[in-house]
């Protein structure tokens, strides 16, 4: 427009908005709820920072919101019924996992819904942790034979003091504390067996499902030298229906 006001200075890239704006906060909250609901393994994530926010008009009267998020791992396993607000973010020295997510949302009639999300997670740098805490335990692969054996020992130990038999759902974390201790965290599911039933025929034991489904989460450690020392503590959550756990309903 040769006659109208002339904009001067660099023009901002299309659709970019302030990351800490109310629309960014609102979209991030919807995105976090979606990510944690659809996250099937490991721990719930907490928002650390909105890296980028873009809002683009979409015909006839809606908007597309594109978010780039930086997330941190919490100590709540995905099966833990605690709301995210009550979950503690894992400290850096505990060798946590971080995630970067790109989320696309649609805003129609003022209501936001997620249309797609892609996340990439990775452990924090072991070198950085060693720099600030040389003796802190570092993550080791979940399929390491020592880890698998450790979890078997821990679950056996738990069953030795409990009548109900629980089966392993997944190993969620494993750390090596130099020189000879393995720390493991794992999720468990209640079954239709007692510990005695399981000792006779473990193959007949089935995880309880539907309204009967009951999950738990254990943290334990095994020190091998000088003598084997086993410590395990499990928290069993109140029975929950699959409706309350869309993750399980989708990917049982």
């Amino acid at each position, binding site marked *: 427009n040769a006659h109208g006001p002339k904009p001067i200075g660099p023009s*901002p890239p299309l659709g970019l908005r302030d990351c800490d704006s109310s629309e960014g906060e609102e979209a991030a909250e919807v995105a976090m709820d979606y990510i944690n609901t659809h996250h099937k393994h490991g721990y719930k994530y907490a928002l650390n920072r909105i890296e*980028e926010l873009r809002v683009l008009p979409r015909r006839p009267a809606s908007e597309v919101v594109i978010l780039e998020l930086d997330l941190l791992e919490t100590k709540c396993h995905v099966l833990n019924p605690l709301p995210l607000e009550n979950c503690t973010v894992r400290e850096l020295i505990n060798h946590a996992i971080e995630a970067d997510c790109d989320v696309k949302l649609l805003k129609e009639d003022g209501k936001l819904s997620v249309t797609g999300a892609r996340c990439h997670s990775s452990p924090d740098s072991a070198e950085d942790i060693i720099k600030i805490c040389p003796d802190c335990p570092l993550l080791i692969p979940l399929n390491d034979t020592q880890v698998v054996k450790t979890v078997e020992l821990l679950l056996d130990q738990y069953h030795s003091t409990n009548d109900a038999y629980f089966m392993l759902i997944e190993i969620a974390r494993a750390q090596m504390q130099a020189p000879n201790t393995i720390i493991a965290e794992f999720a468990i599911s209640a079954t239709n067996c007692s510990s005695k039933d399981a000792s006779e025929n473990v193959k007949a034991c089935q995880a309880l499902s539907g309204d009967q489904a009951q999950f738990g989460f254990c943290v334990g450690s095994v020190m091998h030298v000088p003598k084997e020392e086993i410590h395990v503590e499990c928290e069993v959550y109140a029975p929950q229906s699959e409706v309350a756990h869309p993750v399980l309903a989708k990917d049982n």
Partner: protein
Amino acid sequence: LVVKRTVSEPTAEHPGDVLHPPPPQCPGRIRHFHI
């Protein structure tokens, strides 16, 4: 008195010219800690 004008900040050269809005503030605040 000579006044040196900075060239990095755009200024309106003609009455009625408007400045583009400032670039958005991103990334946003850190809620927990910097990685």
